[in-house]
């Protein structure tokens, strides 16, 4: 590590050859505009990819690829690195043939069932909002003990984008939904799994739930549901139904496969909590984090992400001694509801071991728990909704490791 740490140091008496000998790009002509009509990252950035966690799943089409949080900045996730979770594989659907149907579980739920084309949906009044999406199973492998080495695998089922779409409420209004009878909707996808999830009408009435086509300025990516996806801010990713083809308005929850057999949280009582949906207040330090090696002693920036499915982040504290003492971190703007918030804190490394932790508080006053506080109530078999404080241990050799205290 010491060798690379001195990268900028004058390597000869005179100075650094990278300065003294002008590089080719200072003495030549580069490439023309639009050489790449759609650009890509630098060749030197290839290490940051979405990756599967070896052994986690058995088939690639019913699996997850994790977002490389260890290398990301700010709050917007580059769409090319957005995490993926498919149940029956992803498709690149012809949008001119895609339809959205809204119907009732019976005739009393709405005046008329309707069909919309993409052309029509994109004419309707729309909004643009920044929100995080987190899989309910994010950090699920860590309920019992430290299991995976890096923040990509511990927390990488997390991404954040600016979404553009039509409030679902508008579509329900157009169908003349009887809001006295209707209590739930079922959202259904068009892929093989035809993913189905129940959402309460009350949440839709708030205008927050979107039928979205836009993500980070362009159309949704195929892996994220092109051309249409449900956006359910604050709620776990499985409810953000991709390739959205149908909304059914009804008066009871649907207990679909991913509401009864999965995404249910096993409690110490032996009961499963059903319809656990909100992603509670959570944060993680993304760098320095597991699997990284600090190059040098001295000043470092501790950086990470905080979020809550209940609203805005109010504060984040950071500890470098495993949770004994805490200092407030700086929050970068904008701080938005149900959106990632980037935090930063100073750290001067004296070469001794340290344990980094971050702890978020949201605007409802909920404080992110440590593993002790979380397991006291829920034990460790929930699989889903692990929002415990993450610990990264810095060793004397500069290596950072995933630990639990």
């Amino acid at each position, binding site marked *: 590590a010491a060798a690379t740490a001195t990268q900028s140091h004058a390597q000869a008496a005179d100075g650094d050859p990278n300065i003294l000998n002008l590089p080719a790009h200072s003495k030549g002509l580069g490439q023309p505009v639009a050489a790449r009509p759609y650009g890509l990252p630098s060749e030197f950035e290839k290490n940051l990819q979405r990756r599967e966690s070896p052994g986690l799943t*058995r088939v690639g089409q019913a699996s997850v690829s994790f977002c490389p949080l260890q290398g990301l900045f700010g709050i917007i996730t580059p769409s090319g690195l957005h995490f993926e979770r498919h149940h029956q594989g992803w498709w690149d659907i012809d949008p001119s043939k895609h339809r959205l149907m809204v119907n009732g579980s019976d005739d009393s739920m709405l005046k008329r069932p309707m069909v919309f084309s993409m052309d029509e949906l994109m*004419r309707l009044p729309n909004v643009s909002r920044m929100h995080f999406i987190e899989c309910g199973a994010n950090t699920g492998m860590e309920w019992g003990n430290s299991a995976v*080495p890096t923040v990509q695998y511990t927390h990488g089922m997390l991404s954040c984008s600016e979404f553009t779409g039509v409030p679902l409420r508008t579509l329900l209004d*157009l169908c003349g939904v009887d809001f006295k009878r209707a209590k739930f909707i079922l959202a259904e996808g068009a892929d093989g799994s*035809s993913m*189905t999830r129940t959402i309460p009408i009350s949440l839709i009435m708030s205008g927050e739930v979107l039928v979205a086509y836009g993500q980070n300025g362009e159309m949704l990516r195929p892996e994220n549901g092109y051309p249409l996806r449900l956006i359910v801010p604050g709620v776990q990713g499985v409810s953000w139904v991709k390739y959205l083809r149908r909304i059914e308005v009804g008066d009871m929850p649907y207990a679909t496969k991913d509401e009864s057999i999965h995404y249910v949280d096993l409690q110490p009582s032996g*009961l499963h909590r059903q319809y656990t949906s909100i992603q509670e207040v959570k944060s993680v330090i993304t*760098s320095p984090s597991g699997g990284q090696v600090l190059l040098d002693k001295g000043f470092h920036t501790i950086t990470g992400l905080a979020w809550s499915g209940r609203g805005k982040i109010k504060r984040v*504290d950071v500890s470098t001694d495993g949770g004994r003492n805490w200092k407030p971190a700086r929050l970068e703007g904008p701080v938005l509801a149900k959106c990632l918030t980037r935090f930063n804190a100073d750290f001067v490394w004296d070469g001794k071991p340290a344990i980094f932790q971050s702890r978020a508080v949201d605007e409802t006053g909920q404080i992110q728990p440590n593993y002790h506080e979380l397991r006291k109530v829920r034990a460790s078999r929930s699989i889903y909704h692990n929002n415990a404080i993450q610990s990264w241990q810095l060793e004397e*050799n500069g290596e950072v490791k995933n630990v639990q205290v």
Partner: protein
Amino acid sequence: QQADPAKAQRSALAGIGRTATPAEVKAWDIDVRPDFKGLPKGQGSVRQGEVIWEAQCASCHGSFGESSAVFTPIAGGTTAADVKSGRVDGLMPGANQPQRTTMMKMSTLSTLWDYINRAMPWTSPKSLTANEVYAVTAYILNLGNVLPEDFTLSDSNIREVQGRLPNRNGMTTAHAMWPGRELGGTDRPDVQGSACMTNCGGEAVVKSFLPDYARNAHGNLAEQSRNIGPTRGADTTRAALA
């Protein structure tokens, strides 16, 4: 005129979208609810189901639903006592069940019918007839010792069978994680952290960490981190530096 903004908007937006035809709704409205609304009429026996299972399902899920080749096992881990109580003992703390199978968790039978009907077999979803779904559902229930071998499952007896599911009483909505009040949950989250800022708790002792032999289990981490910045990815093909 401001009295009903929804109505005002409806008229401004008139002409966008159209009424769905009955045939269209029929083609797409395939969901089956816990109260079995949406369930098509039909029937299928355990024996018919076995034939379909062997031909179209067993390759992935195993002849007895025991395989974990593509997913957690479908059957296993439930007992006759569970069928009576409606609570699966294997889910209790310390029960030491190696896996939580579909049969152990499933509390609503509609779920199984609906899911097979919409998504299985995996490579050709929505290819089964309603009767075939009844049959294969019956077979899975037989594998789970919920139905006898000579049973024929149908839209008229499915409610009774629901009453035999091993984990039918295994769910609760008494929590604060549903984003509404429809399910009778609670308002107050069950877990709350601490706002302590100094001298909190005892010494920080590491209780869990990754074993050295797993160091390279996720591939070489040196190749998974940016090559500039204040850190590098650890070269996990080698032992950690002293």
